[in-house]
Every structure is written in C-alpha cells, then in structure tokens.
C-alpha cells in the first residue's frame, strides 16, 4: 500500500472539509475529520467499486453515510474522485446547491436522504438484499444508541448477508457530551458479534494500513455481515479540534482557518484519485 499517496489524499480531504464548512459558515467538520482515513481507504484503495457515470448500475457497490452530518466528507470524496469541482464544493449548504447540509437525492451519489440518525444500516440492508454486490454504511458511535440500528443488526444477522459492511467511527464524542461507551470498542464488538456479525476492531482508525487490513478481512467473510469498529479522534489532524469537546457542528471560524490549514502543511489541490469501476 502506498501510504505516502494516502497521506496526500487525506490532507486534501481535510482541506476540502474544513474550507467548505468554513465558507458555508456551518456544518460538522470534526465529524468528518474522524472518518477521513476510514473512507479514503475504502474509496481509493480498490475496495469500493462504482461507476460514476451511472449511479444505478446494478454492479455498483453502494456507500451510505448513516451519519449524514458528515456530508461534507461525502462530497469531498467524490470531488477527489473527479466528479465535483472544488468550486462546487464551496457552494455547500447554499440555497441553489445540490450539496445540502445533510445528503439528499439531489446529490446523485447519495443512496438516500440521511441525517435522522440510526436509519442508514436498514437502508443498506435493503440494498444488499436487493442485490448490490457490496454495501458500506458509515455510522457514528453516537447514533448506535438508536434502537433502529439494533433492529437492522438483528435482521441482517438473520439474513446472514455478507454483502453488508458497517463502518463504526468511534470518535467518542457526541453533540453535547461524550457517548455512553466512549472508546470501549470491545463492548461494541461484543454487541455486534452477539447479533451474528463478524466484527473487526481497528485500534487506530487513522492508520491507513490497519484500516486497509480491516477491509481486506471483511471481504473474506462469508455468510455474515461485517462491521469495522474503528477507534478515532473527532477533529483528527487539527490540534485545537482533535478530541476536544464543544466543537460538534461548528466550522472552523474564519479567523482560525489559516492556523488550521497551516497544520495540514502543503496540500496538492490538483490531486485526484480513482474509484475503481465495477
């Protein structure tokens, strides 16, 4: 695995998430920053197969951001893939933009409107049972307090569908408080395992090698849904946001933007990466 290439991709994703939310004046950049490595490895290391010219291609894998408030990251990923310009990313949350605050079908690569938490895993299960080859559902740790998640976990376990992969971004922090379980990945693992899932714990969700290994392991599992439970830092990569309470749903203020971007170092704005076709 070319980790240097991923360093560059991840810097660019962080840059795009931070600048687009600061430009919008609202949004959830810290929620995006915890999931950067989890998503960039999925998208750009040939795990995720998708035909950008045809979202309804039946051979497409599918990605659902159940944690819909990470929408800026969803848009940034497709921007790095070449499907959206950086200029358009800067229209995030505008009244005429297809890039709404939380994903909606106006954005053609969103499988569903999400943001009412706890619903994405069910939608992913429906997509998997309807025949999509692989379905990846990004969940926040806060939202797994929703009963709907465990309804989906139980029914997916019953159907033993290996086409469904959950990605649990355990960044420890909710909106107003830490989550009930914090970084207790063992308990999350035990819960999913008891529902008939194959659970893979990633001790460092910002280590692209470890994340890559988890996706590779998930692919080998037969007759079971899989979940990758990754310990992450909310706001990862920016010292004054990282693992700090009080930053949920807040963009970097314009006056702190320069300081935040300086921490990223030199970003290659021309960089693109390919999503492998089905």
């Amino acid at each position, binding site marked *: 695995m070319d980790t240097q290439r991923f360093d560059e991709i991840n810097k660019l994703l962080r840059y795009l998430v931070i600048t687009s939310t600061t430009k919008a004046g609202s949004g959830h950049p810290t929620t995006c920053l915890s999931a950067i490595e989890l998503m960039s490895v999925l998208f750009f290391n040939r795990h995720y197969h998708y035909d950008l010219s045809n979202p309804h291609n039946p051979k497409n894998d599918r990605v659902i951001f159940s944690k819909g408030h990470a929408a800026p990251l969803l848009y940034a990923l497709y921007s790095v893939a070449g499907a959206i310009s950086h200029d358009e990313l800067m229209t995030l949350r505008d009244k005429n933009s297809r890039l709404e605050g939380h994903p909606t079908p106006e954005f053609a690569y969103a499988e569903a409107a999400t943001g009412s938490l706890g*619903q994405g*895993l069910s939608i992913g299960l429906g997509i998997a049972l309807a025949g999509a080859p692989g379905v990846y559902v990004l969940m926040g740790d806060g939202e797994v307090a929703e009963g709907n998640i465990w309804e989906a976990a139980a029914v997916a376990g019953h159907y033993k569908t290996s086409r469904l992969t959950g990605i649990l971004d355990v960044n420890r922090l909710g909106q107003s408080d830490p989550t009930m379980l914090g970084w207790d990945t063992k308990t999350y693992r035990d819960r999913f395992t008891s529902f008939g899932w194959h659970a893979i714990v990633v001790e460092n969700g910002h280590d692209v090698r470890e994340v890559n290994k988890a996706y590779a392991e998930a692919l080998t599992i037969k007759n079971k849904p899989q979940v990758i439970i990754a310990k992450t830092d909310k706001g990862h990569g920016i010292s004054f946001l990282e693992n700090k309470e009080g930053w949920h749903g807040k963009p970097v203020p314009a006056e702190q933007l320069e300081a935040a971007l300086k921490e990223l170092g030199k970003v290659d704005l021309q960089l693109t990466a390919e999503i492998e076709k089905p």
Partner: protein
Amino acid sequence: MNMKATRKAYGEALAKLGNKYPNVVSLDAETKNSTYAEDFKAVYPHRYFDCFIAEQNMVGMAVGMARMGKIPFASSFAAFFTRAYDQVRMGALSLANFKIVGSHAGVSIGPDGSSQMALEDLACMRAVWNSVVLYPSDPVATEKLVEEMIKHKGFCYMRTTRAVTETVYKESEKFPIGGFKIHRANSKLSITNSKSITIISAGITFHEALKVQEKLAGKIGVTVVDLYSIKPVNALELKKAVKTQHVITVEDHWPEGGLGDAVLNVFSDVPSVSVHKLAVSTLPHSGSPEENLARAGIDAEAIEKKVNEILSM
C-alpha cells in the same frame, strides 16, 4: 352477498399482480397471516422478506430496496407504522418509490382493544411530503388501488380493514388515484332540495353510510361519496359532485387530520356548504366491531341521528 375483508383482498391482489410486475417485493413485520402478505409469499417466496417485529428497520429496508429498482410493499398493523414514522418521513425525502399497507385500522377491529387500533394513521400519512393515501371500501377497489400504487412512482399508503365487508363494485370499475365514487339515492327525491344530504366516508364507515341511505330512501335524498383517495382529493370534481347544503363526513379515525379534515379543506372556500364531522372522539375500548362503531358514534344509527339533527335545524 359477497363478503371479504379488504386486508384479504390486498394479499390476493399483490399475489395476482406479482407476475405482471416482477419488481414488486413484499416485506412484513411478522403479521403476514393478518395482513395477508402470506398470499404473496405463497406464490413468490424469494420476493418476500420477513422483517420480524421491527417496523423501523422494515421501512428502512423498503427504502433501500426501492433504490435498487424494486417496488416494495411493507405491511403490518396500521397502528405500528406510527413507530416508523421518522423512517417514512425520510423515505419520502429520499424520493423513494415505496409502499406501505396498514391493516386493522380503527375501532372496528373490535375486541383486541385500543392498543391495536390505528386512529391517527391517515393524519400521519397525509402529512408526509408528496404522499398518496388510499382507503378502499371493497375488494374490487382494493385490487385496483394496489395496481395504482404499483404504477405510481413515489410513496403510497393504503389503509385496510380487519372486518369483512360487502363487495360493492363491479370488476369493470376504475379507481384512479385522486378519484372518488358517487352513490346517488335510488329515489325520485331531488338531491338539491332541503330534504337532501351528502355523506362522505371511506372504508368501514362507507358501508354504514350506505345503510343510512337505504333506510332513509323515499324520505331523505342521501348521496354517499366513497372517498377512497384521501390524498390527493380532486377538489374541483368533489365540489361539483356535492349538490347539497350539508355534508357529513364519517371516519373510523380521530377527528384530527383524517378524511373529515381532507373534506373540510376542499370546502373551506365554499360558504354555501357546511361540513359536519363524525369521527372517533371517545377513548376506545374492547368490544365487538358493531359495539365499537356505535360507542364511537360512527355507525349507521349515529349517522342517521346526525342527518335528522341537521335537516331539522
């Protein structure tokens, strides 16, 4: 008399239409022998998904399947979809082509008691963005409306009835979304004089309205409207169809947000027409279907009383 419950007609219709529409799939929350989704399962076991008693997940799954080009019909007791209302709301915002069929609506389910009675489902589903809300009164209407749901792109809700009811319509009748059926009194009484009235209802109470029409024949000209499409309502045509000063609406639903309010919306700018709502306004209880309709004040007797009260004013 040909008697059948609309919930049974639903299961039979879906099974019958399955061949013509290969993308139709069925999901049910462990109530398939009550909703009659089992009729579809019997013919198409691989297009049927048991979702167990987990309605929120079932609606989410339906939204996902719709994204893949399937036409999912999710069924359970109508009352239990209220717990998945957020999922329905999000499905509508996802522009998903999904269908929900809720059975056992209203106090007319009888002895099972209030926890099993959907009495707010019409209000809930009417309030969903761009929704279609259907409430068939007989097996023919049910089958035709199931096919309309399949052909319509977008979210549709159908309310079915537990009790068996009489088959009223001929096979040749058409039931377009947005339509209604008028049943004029078979008498020489003018429908526009002071001894005339219009009763608008659907489902179980439509049959109560027909009883009133028959009983009052020759004395009072009762026009009965079967408003099987609760949303959308063709306001222009309904205004034309109603030729009496007074309209009574009757529904097995709370007074808020259901059929009566849909009719009130239509006549809100017609000062010459008065709309009187009959709906369930007391706390429901176990009892026979007939007792429950009487207690709720929505049976034939209650309607007749209301007719006499209005026309003697």
